């Protein structure tokens, strides 16, 4: 019975964690909106990321990292993210509106 209670408790916790995780941006993604406007009401030469094609974000980050795309700060920032992190961020932004 104790085991069953514990199992149920563990189940509750992992369900709660899973629900939270599905809505949550991956590591690093939330920081982007310091410069890339989350809101459509803000005008900026820096593009919004929400709804962008994930492959385009991945390609841009690769080019910023290698120095083949002109940049002011993104070359320095892109070097702080692994390919896996960029993929997760790109996939998340592609689902945002």
């Amino acid at each position, binding site marked *: 019975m*104790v085991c069953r*209670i*514990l199992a149920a*408790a*563990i189940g*509750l*916790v992992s369900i*709660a*964690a899973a*629900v*939270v*995780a599905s*809505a*949550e*941006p991956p*590591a*690093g993604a*939330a*920081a*982007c*909106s*310091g*410069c*890339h*406007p*989350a*809101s459509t*009401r*803000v*005008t*900026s*030469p*820096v593009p919004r990321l929400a709804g962008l094609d994930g492959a385009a974000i991945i390609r841009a980050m690769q080019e910023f990292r290698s120095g083949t795309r002109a940049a*002011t*700060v993104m070359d*320095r*920032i*892109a*070097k*702080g*993210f692994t390919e896996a*992190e960029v993929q997760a961020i790109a996939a998340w932004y592609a689902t945002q509106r």
Partner: protein
Amino acid sequence: MRVSRREFLKLGGAATSAALLPLPTFAQGAAPRVVVVGGGFAGASCARALRQADPRIAVTLVEANTTFTACPFSNAVIGGLRELSAQQFTYERVAADGIAVARGTATVVDAQARSVTLADGTRLPYDRLVLAPGIDIRWGALPGYDEAAAALMPHAWRAGEQTLLLRRQLEAMPDGGLVVISAPANPFRCPPGPYERASLIAHYLKTKKPKSKLIVLDAKDAFSKQRLFQAAWAELYPGLLEWVPLSKGGNVISVAAATGTLVTDFGRHKAAVANVIPPQKAGRIAEAAGVADRSGWCPIDPVTFESKLQAGIHVIGDAAIAGAMPKSAFAANSQAKTCAAAVVRLLAGGAPSAPKLINTCYSLLAPDYGISVAGVYQPSGGQLADVPGSGGVSPTDAPRATRAAEAVLAEAWFRTITGEVFG
């Protein structure tokens, strides 16, 4: 040893509530309560991020002022390039998100009972508390510099009336006057701030009062973006702006506000206008809550921003000891969103995952001359550390077109971040 079934259940129950379900508030159906103290870039960002992540959380934002006055770009106000109204924001949109904005000053935190008390006696119970109190001036740390002295020698390091005071003093100064800025030792709010301010005051003097001179007395021998600043000063303000480092007698050891005098180890300077940027510490409530250490700042866990000194209390923004992250508005906003995600996980009984944070800071050296520093950070060895190989400052050999582009991006950044936090 035999353990009876009843005792075993009791033990099991204790272990369950301590380790597995530290706060099963959601399961019980009660709305978890998060109180955020301080409505700046850190606090207001965190309150909104919490609410956005889970509207079931009852979020209260405690803030003393009805209007927020932003520090970034306030040096442009001092230099006559911008009006203070462009720095000011209200909490209307924050409240419209469903956040209870409590007008008042938090004076007492009871970490055991988990409640915050405001100056008017209002008691706010919480499940988790986020402190984002910014900075306080360390009055008394610089002999002669107290609140009365600040009315004569403004610090202008919390934007608002002090910003306007310094601007008016510069406007009233006759051409040929000596302006002195005193810059503090690390750590302090906005590491490149004193040097951006020196640049924009120099720009004002060059344009309006070209016979004047500006001296920066520094308690340090090195500062943020130093090579970029010094190259630009030689190009833009030759003979007008002099930086005196610690090793050349830059450390101000006392001031006499009535006579406009700043005393260093090597001599004294009599200023027509003196801007004293004094030593600082975490905002007052941090000390009252027991989350500040002997340095005056707040040690935190780099994953959750929970205080290392008090359970259930998180500290974000300038008040926190955030390792390699500077005390900047961008960093505060980035930390706020990370902390909010961790708090949501903790309230749900989950484990926060390792975050990645960013900082980007622009400085204006003239209206069309901007530079930047950027960094990416992750927890490492119990601190927030630079991700190796990332970050850095604008190139030293960039053409003026790049400086102009960064000046435009600086303004865009301000619109974007204030739009996210207050819009």
